[in-house]
């Protein structure tokens, strides 16, 4: 028994470590969003600020480091992503539903084959789905001779919707299959027997039954589409979605604006998850109550009789919320005390940095010379770019924010 306890403690420690591993990077990333420094970091801490959520910052060389609110590429990417997500939901949910329905009707001899083909897209690497869609549609566009087919075949949003629908339909399919497995088929028969036509059975019995699955597959299809990169990066052609914008930003240099974007997404996810969980618990509780009532009225077993409790108890989550609020107030107080919050602090550090700027420029020039030297020697400039002092990288600033003229990757 004792060894069992020791084991459980070990397991508990392990789980703590695991969750730290899972959440630690996200938490640190979230914190960096509030550091005014250009490089997303916790230490050294410059100033507490919301600049990366708002306007960003004008760097010393005049380049604009866009903040979340001012980055038009992010905004356009977001709108494209939303469009694509909507299109994917509209296509993949009906497709997944129909595939799941047909699976229940298909002759058992073909069932395995049908099922295998249907789940294949999930097993394909995402890049391959993107590529195959693009090459096929390029061919169609060429053959289309300038008509509608050509327009569609060269439209990145359209191709991305198709490519994503290919595998997201499988997600929906799997959700529907799971729900249909618990469907009592006699209900369909009962409805038929009561005079409903097949179409009526579909809309009055099957669809209401599938409604929860439809809702969840809509959400999942949208999220999967929204966060997809591997497929999208090929099929989007010359357009940009949120993920491809993020990717090109991250690849070229990292900015706290991305941290702030991540934080916003994390908060949205958190809110939705918590809201869903609360609703679900409430529903569960209600269901249990109804069932208990029904059981009591049926059996009149005195043990099941409900005793009304009049004691009022404070719901537990309130303590959690209070705790967070107190921590926030305390932390904020500390920030103000140490004068590392707000525009005054930022101005101070800016000034300090600007005084170093001449020095930095010299360094910059030296590095650039060295870089061109080495490149002429072995033709490889990328070696040193990734690591170290960001001021040492001559290309970096212009790729940070909104106004660069990056060459598009389009074929």
């Amino acid at each position, binding site marked *: 028994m004792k060894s069992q306890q020791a084991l459980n403690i070990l*397991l508990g420690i392990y*789980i703590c470590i*695991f*969750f730290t*591993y*899972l959440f630690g*990077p*996200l938490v640190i990333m979230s914190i960096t969003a509030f550091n005014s420094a250009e*490089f997303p*970091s916790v*230490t*050294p801490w410059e100033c507490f600020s919301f600049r990366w959520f708002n306007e960003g910052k004008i760097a010393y060389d005049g380049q604009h480091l866009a903040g979340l609110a001012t980055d038009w590429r992010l905004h356009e990417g977001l709108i494209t992503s939303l469009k694509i997500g909507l299109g994917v939901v509209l296509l993949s949910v*009906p*497709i997944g539903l129909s*595939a799941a*329905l047909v699976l229940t009707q298909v002759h058992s001899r073909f069932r395995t084959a049908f099922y295998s*083909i*249907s*789940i*294949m*897209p*999930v*097993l*394909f*690497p995402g*890049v*391959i*789905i993107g*590529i*195959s869609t693009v*090459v096929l549609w*390029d061919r169609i566009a*060429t053959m289309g001779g300038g008509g509608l087919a050509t327009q569609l075949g060269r439209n990145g949003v359209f191709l991305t919707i198709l490519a994503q629908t290919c595998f997201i*339909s499988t997600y929906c399919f799997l959700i529907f299959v799971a729900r249909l497995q618990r469907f009592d088929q006699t209900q369909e028969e009962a409805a038929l027997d009561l005079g409903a*036509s*097949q*179409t009526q*059975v*579909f809309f009055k019995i099957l669809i209401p039954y599938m409604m929860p699955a439809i809702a969840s597959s809509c959400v999942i299809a949208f*999220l999967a589409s929204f*966060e997809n*990169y*591997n497929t999208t*990066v*090929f099929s989007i052609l010359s357009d940009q979605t949120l993920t491809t914008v*993020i*990717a090109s930003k*991250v690849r070229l240099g*990292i900015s706290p604006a991305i*941290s702030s*974007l*991540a934080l916003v*997404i*994390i908060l949205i*996810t958190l809110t939705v998850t918590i809201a869903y969980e609360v609703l679900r618990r409430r529903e569960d509780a209600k269901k249990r109550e109804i069932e208990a009532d029904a059981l009591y009225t049926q059996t009149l077993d005195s043990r099941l009789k409900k005793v009304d409790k009049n004691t009022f108890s404070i719901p537990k989550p309130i303590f959690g919320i209070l705790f967070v609020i107190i921590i926030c107030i305390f932390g904020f107080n500390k920030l103000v005390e140490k004068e590392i919050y707000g525009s005054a602090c930022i101005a101070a550090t800016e000034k300090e940095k600007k005084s170093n700027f001449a020095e930095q420029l010299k360094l910059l020039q030296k590095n650039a010379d060295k870089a061109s030297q080495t490149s002429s020697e072995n033709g490889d400039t990328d070696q040193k770019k*990734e*690591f*170290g002092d*960001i001021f040492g990288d001559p290309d970096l600033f212009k790729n940070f924010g909104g106004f660069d003229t990056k060459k598009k990757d389009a*074929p």
Partner: protein
Amino acid sequence: MNYFFNKNGPLISTYLIISIGFWLVFLIIVPQLYMFDLSFRPNIPTLLRGGPDDVYTLVHYKHFLFGSETSGERYNYVDVGVFLDTILIAILITLINLCFCYPIAFYIAKVATAKTARLLIVSLIIPFWINELLRSFALRILFAGEGFINNVLIKIGLINSGINFIAMDVALYTGLNYAYILLMIFPLYNAIETLDKNQLEAAEDLGSSMIRTHFRIVIPHAKAGIASGCTMVFMLTAGALATPVVLSSPNTFWFTQLIYQWFNMNDNWPRGAAYSVVLLTVSVVFVLLMMRIFKVKIGEIVR
């Protein structure tokens, strides 16, 4: 067929047939076949397609194995090397993930109370829904030259100057591990969850040791979950693009990045298609291997 129409009525039947036909034929089968076909074509401008030069050729596969004719190397060490690296590391990461996740999945499924389990699962789902790019970005912040880890290590005096985690590929491997770890937990959890707790108690009652119980009872029971988790993690790791884009060092390539290069930088679509076919073949072989080793059906792998 007649039966099908009778059962669904004309309207619904039409809907079912059109949507499934569209999906299976137009989105799944035809693009893959066309890509397969393209991988055997020479890289010629669109205008010459269908012309006399458009003949089947193995040139792209040859290039993958032996490199360009101008290079003096016997084999295409770079590309094959990247390919083998990708596969080996993907397998390694899969195994590490499996070892990492098994205790967690077991804890949630069998040890924790229902309420705790629910809480843990929800908190596992949250990071799962955050974009893979952003999760990689979080690691990049940690591992960067002036990043969190280096700063902490310097502060406590373990090292003098920053370690280049990115160039050492530590960042990349951690990132790949981090990205898909949840896809290992959920299948394992689902599989272990169905195990009757009485079986564990019976094994204990019969004097089986903890470890033996796991190897003789829990793992055999969860083999479908293990197969499923391993397949998903391997597939996603080998086919990952987002994480390598963010975390790989400039001189390390992931195989998908090679494909990306042939497509978008070098504009050689047939060669990109050929490399894709290679990746796809590996994926299919891996799935079949998993089905063989664990003796599970394909339906048990993808759920």
